[in-house]
């Protein structure tokens, strides 16, 4: 038979210590659930689809030593060599996405539009660009070789066609059918016809407000700000990376070559997020551990304090199960009070964080899951002391100490 009322009466006589543990639990819940939202948001951010075959991609960059280095010729020779390498599926010359470095600007749907621009990152690339990144063309067509221009970095010339991401297409043309429409860059009057739409590309800065809004120009920029983007056949990335480094050095030993996987660059870009996840996970674990310790400590203290009482209860007919149940129920009542307070505190805390730091809203379901976990931690912490309490002999009732 559950002893809710007597337990409540007994707790009322020890309300300060019970309340302190409940408050500790509540505070932990408020912090843990809000930290969980941040962790969840960061994890989702890192894990969201990028639209590219990031696991198979290797990027290479070199710094030419001579000042009169023929960059375009090097591009041509390198690409010819790279595309012949075993394990290479496709290669292009552009900038690596997800790397935290690139270009962006404001795009419009009308010429000379001065307000209402939509921010987007942009890349230059040849007809191999979509294939080299493993992107999916969902509408229209790819660039053709004849459409690719060689442009100097200082050139103000605008391409006449473009490919954009589905997200940007939906933003600029919410009524749909972006294909064939014109796009204007930076408030000028040079229309760029949208000839293709790719499913997704997060651009150079996946954490920025323009992430996912990406524009591709049919051009090879004659600039040092470029990367060779090489997509390996599945499972061949590491072999291709090694081969690429060797063959590039073999073709021209007079240059400094840097070869990396795109995964490495992505990891570096998300280093802050990963650190935040680790720190918050540590804080959450530490707080939960401290709560568990507090509960173990309090339960052990109360049991030690009530050894005689437990003996008396046993003498009066309590089974071992009844004694364990008493302490678990007592713990559950304290923990339930704590999580009830904590659920309210978590929401208030979240509103403060949302208004001050733009933290995402805390769904009640997250708080409830955290509350359930804390309840389980609390009960588990009380379990061993409660089982030990059940072993107190009923003969304790007749002892004089």
């Amino acid at each position, binding site marked *: 038979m559950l002893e809710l009322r007597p337990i409540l009466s007994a707790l009322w006589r020890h309300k300060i210590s019970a309340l302190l543990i409940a408050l500790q639990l509540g505070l932990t819940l408020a912090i843990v659930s809000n930290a969980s939202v941040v962790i969840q948001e960061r994890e989702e951010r890192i894990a969201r689809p990028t639209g590219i075959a990031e696991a198979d991609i290797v990027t290479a960059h070199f710094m030419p030593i001579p000042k009169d280095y023929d960059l375009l010729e090097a591009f041509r020779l390198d690409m010819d060599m790279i595309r012949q390498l075993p394990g290479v599926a496709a290669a292009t010359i552009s900038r690596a996405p997800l790397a935290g470095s690139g270009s962006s600007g404001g795009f419009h749907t009308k010429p000379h539009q001065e307000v209402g621009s939509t921010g987007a990152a942009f890349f230059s690339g040849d007809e191999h660009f979509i294939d080299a990144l493993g992107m999916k063309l969902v509408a229209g067509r790819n660039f053709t070789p004849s459409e690719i221009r060689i442009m100097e970095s200082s050139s103000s010339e605008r391409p006449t066609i473009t490919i954009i991401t589905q997200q940007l297409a939906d933003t600029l043309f919410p009524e749909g059918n972006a294909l064939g429409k014109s796009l204007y860059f930076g408030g000028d009057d040079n229309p760029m016809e949208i000839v293709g739409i790719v499913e997704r590309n997060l651009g150079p800065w996946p954490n920025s407000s323009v992430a996912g809004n990406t524009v591709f120009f049919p051009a090879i920029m004659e600039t040092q700000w470029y990367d060779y983007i090489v997509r390996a056949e599945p499972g061949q990335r590491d072999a291709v990376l090694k081969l690429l480094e060797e063959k590039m050095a073999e073709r021209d030993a007079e240059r400094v070559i840097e070869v990396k996987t795109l995964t490495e660059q992505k990891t570096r870009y998300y280093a802050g997020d990963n650190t935040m996840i680790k720190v918050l996970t540590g804080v959450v674990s530490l707080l939960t551990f401290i709560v568990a310790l507090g509960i173990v400590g309090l339960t052990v203290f109360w049991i030690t304090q009530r050894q005689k009482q437990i003996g008396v209860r046993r003498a009066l007919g309590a089974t071992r199960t*009844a004694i364990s149940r008493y302490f678990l129920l007592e713990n559950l009542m304290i923990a339930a009070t704590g999580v009830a307070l904590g659920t309210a505190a978590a929401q208030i805390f979240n509103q403060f964080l949302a208004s001050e730091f733009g933290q995402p809203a805390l769904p009640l379901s997250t708080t409830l899951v955290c509350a359930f976990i804390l309840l389980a931690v609390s009960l588990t912490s009380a379990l061993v002391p409660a089982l030990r309490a059940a072993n107190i002999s*009923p003969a304790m009732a*007749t002892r004089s100490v």
Partner: protein
Amino acid sequence: MLKMHNIRKSYRTDTIETHALRDFSLEVNEGEFVSVTGPSGSGKTTFLNIAGLLETPTGGQYLLDGQEVGNLSDRERSHLRNEKIGFIFQGFNLIPDLSLFDNIDVPLRYRGFNAKERRRRIEKSLEQVGLSARAKHLPAQLSGGQQQRVAIARALAGEPRFLLADEPTGNLDSLMARQVMELLEFINQWGTTIVMVTHDPDLARRAHRNIQIVDGQVSDLRQNIAADEAAIA
């Protein structure tokens, strides 16, 4: 009611084995009031613990109400304690955090009675000990004698057939002790078998029979002390 035959109880540490009871045999009949005396360390408490199923004997046979209890599980012993045995302790052993009502309620909850039946029994037992008006008070708000009466009410509420009292007047002044003793005698008259451990020879004499334990054995068994003394007189 209670029949012990060659009961042995020893406590063992790494180096020493202490024999608390040795070949202890005793029979207590239904409705008897038996006092148990003896010097400190003689084995009185051990006897009480074994009689009350608080401890198990090392050897021997113990029949309670005709049932062999030596091989019962802990759960079965708990149920038997709850149903058949009432305890009155020297230090009252009331739970300080609970009101008198809730204290008496403790064994009744373990018995599984419903709320209505528990209330009826609690009110009746409080009335029997004359403390109905104090049901909501805490033990600390009562005198020692009143607390012992609550402990008796707690023992009575389960309507046990066998009452074990461990120095029930040990912590009381003479007036309170007399009141508690009268209450026990009254309870015995209703038919409850009582075994009372005491140091007080005057109280021991008021029982039907006195048993003296020395060195873990029954040393002197005198039937009907009152009748003997009457004959001598």
